[in-house]
Each structure stands twice: as C-alpha cells, then as structure tokens.
C-alpha cells in the first residue's frame, strides 16, 4: 500500500544517469560504466546492490530467448471504487502508469522455457503503481497458476510489490485470498511453485502468494516484510536494527530457502526445475 510514497533515492539509478556513460550505484555511489551496469544487470560490481528490474528485463535474463508467450496482456486495472483523492482519480493514475510502463498491469504472466524447461511465470513490475496487488494483478496470477495446474508445469513468481492496491479497496485485499486459492491447488496437485522475492516484497504480497511457495528464493538485500518500517517504528517506538527485513534477515529467521545473486538466479532456477523434472 506504499508504492505512491516518494521513491527512495537509493533506487532508480538506471533511470537517472550521472552522465551518459556512467551510472552511480544508488547504494555505495560508485560510478559504474553504463554497459557494465546494464550487463550485470543493474547489480553494483562493488557493493552487490541489486537495483530493481522491470518485468521485461527480468523475463529477458530468465527465459530462453524467444520462448516467452504472454498470457492475458489485455487484462488491465479495474476501478471498483471509482477512487479519487479529490485531485487525481485512480483511473488517471492508472492510465499514466500504463503510458509510462507500456504495461496494463503490475504483473506480466506467461509461459516460456527456462534452460529448455517449460515453465509458467509471473513477474511483477514495481514501476507499475509500486507493483501493487490490484484485481488485474490477482486475476493474472490466478490465471497463470490455473494454467500451470492444467498443464502440470512448474510455476515461478517473481514478486516486487509494496502490497495491496489501496485504490481498489477491499477488492484488492481479496486478491490475497484469490491468489492463495490458486497456489493451494498447486500444492494439492503436486505442482512445483517457486516464489522469488525481489526488492521490495512487502504487505499484502508478502502475506499471500510470495510466502506460500514450496521454495522461497530471494535476491540479496531485498526488502521483505509485512509491515512498513515507519509503521513498526511508530508502534514499538524504537529504531529498527540494521539489516531488519532484508533477505539475509529472513534467511536467518527461517523464511527463505536460499539467496541467489542475480547472475546465478537463472542457473539456480534451472537446477531446481531440472531436479523436479527428472
């Protein structure tokens, strides 16, 4: 529910370049050559900071070239509340997000091959309204899970979300239940479901499909948690410890199976898929 907060300045370096040739790492401020930065992709060679990827970027580095077939690109935002904050309506906001991202929703779903193994994937895009979970998002994830079930294909979801999409009100909250209903069927029918948690995975997404996987993989230092840091600090009236709600913190506390560097992620997924397929 926090995607509309001001973008933290440590993110988004890929967009705001220092000059044409160099990218400044949002975390350690190292200057990285633009080619090197996007080849990594978007991983600082010095401090291993993993900057956020768009859904297309994620698909590109994950699937075999030319194998991705998208599901339901037409599914878009709905506005069940006719929500407006008085100045701007959700409808306008959503249209702007569509224009800016070229996406119709905060998730891209489809089927493709990963190292020659057919998988069903859903990839969230944080740029689209903070990767928030709206009815279109939930619908696309459910349809993808349903496809995975019917074709008995492993399902991989890359999360990146601030949580539920406030502007769709209760309908947004219900997408948590809806997506988990889809996941529950995969569990019952023995279909592998891998949840990949990337920066950030919080709120209603962390409290639903992202935390209901057979295997949970996280990218290094990704922010993962239920409540927002500010809310927690106000509640407990103390500062949070360093490293709180990072992927490493969650690994230590038993909620993540493994952390994979972005350059190893495809290989890691491939190994697991190959294991199941055998």
């Amino acid at each position, binding site marked *: *529910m926090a995607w509309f*907060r001001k973008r933290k300045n440590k993110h988004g370096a890929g967009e705001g370049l220092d000059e044409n040739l160099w990218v400044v790492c949002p975390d350690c401020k190292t200057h990285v050559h633009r080619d090197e930065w996007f080849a990594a992709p978007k991983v600082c060679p010095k401090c291993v900071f993993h900057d956020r990827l768009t859904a297309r970027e994620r698909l590109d580095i994950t699937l075999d070239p030319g194998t991705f077939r998208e599901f*339901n690109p037409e*599914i*878009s935002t*709905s*506005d*069940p*509340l006719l*929500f407006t*904050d*008085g100045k701007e309506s959700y409808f306008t906001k959503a249209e702007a997000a569509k224009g800016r991202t070229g996406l119709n929703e905060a998730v891209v779903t489809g089927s493709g091959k990963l190292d020659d193994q057919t998988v069903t994937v859903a990839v969230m895009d944080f740029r689209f309204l903070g990767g928030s979970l709206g*009815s*279109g998002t939930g*619908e696309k994830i*459910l349809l993808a899970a349903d496809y995975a079930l019917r074709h008995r294909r492993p399902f991989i979801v890359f999360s990146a979300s601030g949580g*539920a*999409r*406030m502007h*769709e*009100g*209760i*309908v*947004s*909250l*219900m*997408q*948590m*239940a*809806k997506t*988990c*209903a*889809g*996941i*529950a069927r995969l*569990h019952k029918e023995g279909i592998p479901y891998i949840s990949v948690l990337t920066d950030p995975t*919080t*709120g*209603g997404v*962390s*409290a*639903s*499909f*992202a*935390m*209901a996987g057979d295997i949970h993989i996280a990218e290094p230092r990704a922010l993962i*948690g*239920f*409540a927002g840091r500010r*809310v*927690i600090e106000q*509640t*407990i009236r*103390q500062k*949070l410890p360093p490293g*709180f*709600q990072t992927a490493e913190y969650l690994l230590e*506390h*038993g*909620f993540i199976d493994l952390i994979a560097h972005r350059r190893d992620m495809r290989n890691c997924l491939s190994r697991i898929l190959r294991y199941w397929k055998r």
Partner: protein
Amino acid sequence: MDPQKDFDQELKDIEAKIAELKLLAKDDSVRFGTEIAQLEKEKADLETSLYANLSPWQIVQIARHPQRPLLRDYIEGIFSEFIELHGDRRFGDDAGLIGGLATIEDRRAVLIGHQKGRTVEDNVKMNFGMANPEGYRKALRLMKLAEKFRLPVISFIDTPGAYPGLDAEARGQAEAIAANLAAMASLEVPIIVIVTGEGGSGGALGIGMGDSVLMLAYAVYSVISPEGCASILWRDGAKAPEAAAALKITAASLLEMGVVDDIVPEPLGGAHRDPQQTLANVKDALIKRLKKHARFSPKKLVETRYEKYADIGRWKNWW
C-alpha cells in the same frame, strides 16, 4: 469534543433526560407522563434522522465503539458452550486471537476470532486485537483440528490489523497470514466468517476466508485504515472521514462488490444500543449459514470456495 466521535451526543442527552424523568415519574406519573412521551417521540425522530444517513466515517465510529459487543460477549451470549484451547504449539499463546470448541444450538463448530479488550489492562494483554504470528498459527492449528473432526469453522473478525511489531516480523507475520490463506483455501470443512467490528486489512483476512462471509450492518472492512489512507493520500490523518468514504468500507458497499455474502442487521444506531438484539441476529445468521454449508461434500466445498474467490475482481466483471 470531537464532533466526529460524538455525533450521537444529542441523542445521549435526550436519553439521559428521559431516564431522569422516568425516575421522577415514579412519584408523580401524571406530571411527567406527557413530558416523557414528548421526549420519546423526539428521540425516535432524532434517531431516524441521525442514523438514516450515517457517513462511512460515522459507521467507523460505531464499528469501533467501546461498548460494541466483543468476541467474549458473542461467546457468552450465543454459544451454549465454549471450551477455549490455547497455544500454537510453536512459540506462544496469543490472547488477541482466541479459539476453541463451541456449540451453537446443538451445532458444533470450532470458533476462532480476534479478541479486543475493553479495559486498558485487557488491551495490553490482547494487544487491542492485533494478532501476532502465534495467533494466526493457533488459528491454523484449530482449523486443522476442525478438519480432523469434520467440524465447521466460525471465524469472528474484529481487529485493527495484524500487529506491526519487530518481533512479529521476526517470527514471520507475513508467512503466518500467507499460510493461513493457503490452508483456508483448501480446508475440507465449511468456514463461516463474520466481521463484527473492524475488519483490518491482512490481519482480518488472515482468518477471514470462508464459504460465507457475513458482516454486521455497522461493521467496516478495509484494505487500510481510513487514517492510514488519509495520511498517505493527503499527509493528514485528520482527513480520515474523506478516506473512509473513498475506500467504500461499509457493509453495503462490500455486499455490492460481492465480497460479503450477507449483512446481519443491527439495531438502529449500532450494536451497542441493543446488544441482545445484535447477538440474536448474529446467532440466526450463523445458524442459517451452518445449515447451508453442511449439505456439501468436502470436495464440493473446496471447489465452491475456490470459485467464490476466483470471481472476486474477475476481469470484465467491472467494465
């Protein structure tokens, strides 16, 4: 005086006056009789005008009213038996999310629900009904117990939200809620949910998936608190009334959106104005739903529940 909080102050004044006069009328019924009758009429008119068009924010006040019935009140008033069971068998026992074996008119059901306190002391213990992971895990354990014994589950929702504390995060608040959603989606016994007060976001939904989801007339159910929404949208928590309206969090709105299946009526002005009537209404509604879902096979139940949730926010349902 907060005008929002005490919108029914005028009514309270008249009621106090009537009570006073009635006391005096014991000695001199002739003298006060007309005056009382006059005030009673005034009161009825005021009630009608006051409660006929409550704003969503006023409904929030009713949903959070300190005298509104809490889970323990429903347990005592509706259920002929309640054997409370404690603990998640993992880490602790959450006083803010309780559960046990309950009987309602000779029908058995495993009861789970948020428990707010009415006193400061109780609220410290019950964390204002904001559950910790061990609360959700206790609920899950009890739901699995219900499944073992083929008993339906009744879930009472009344929480500002899941507790946003450091320890709650460390012990996996997100995972606890996620695990419950997956489990409730495939639980092979009926689940009846009723939102009696505040339905606070994921903390409510964490025990809130069901075959029937009911809502008291003045309960609210929202993805975010009006205050939270207002401070995000306008950086001003005081604009909560506007947010409450924008979020469409009342029972009527939720029924319209297909998120709740039925509204359980409350006395004019709210449950706290006639708790007995409220309890009777809730009891009737629960029994009706228990009867309804008892007919289905486990397989059919789970399938129907899946379809129900798959349909919420179905693409093309809106446009």
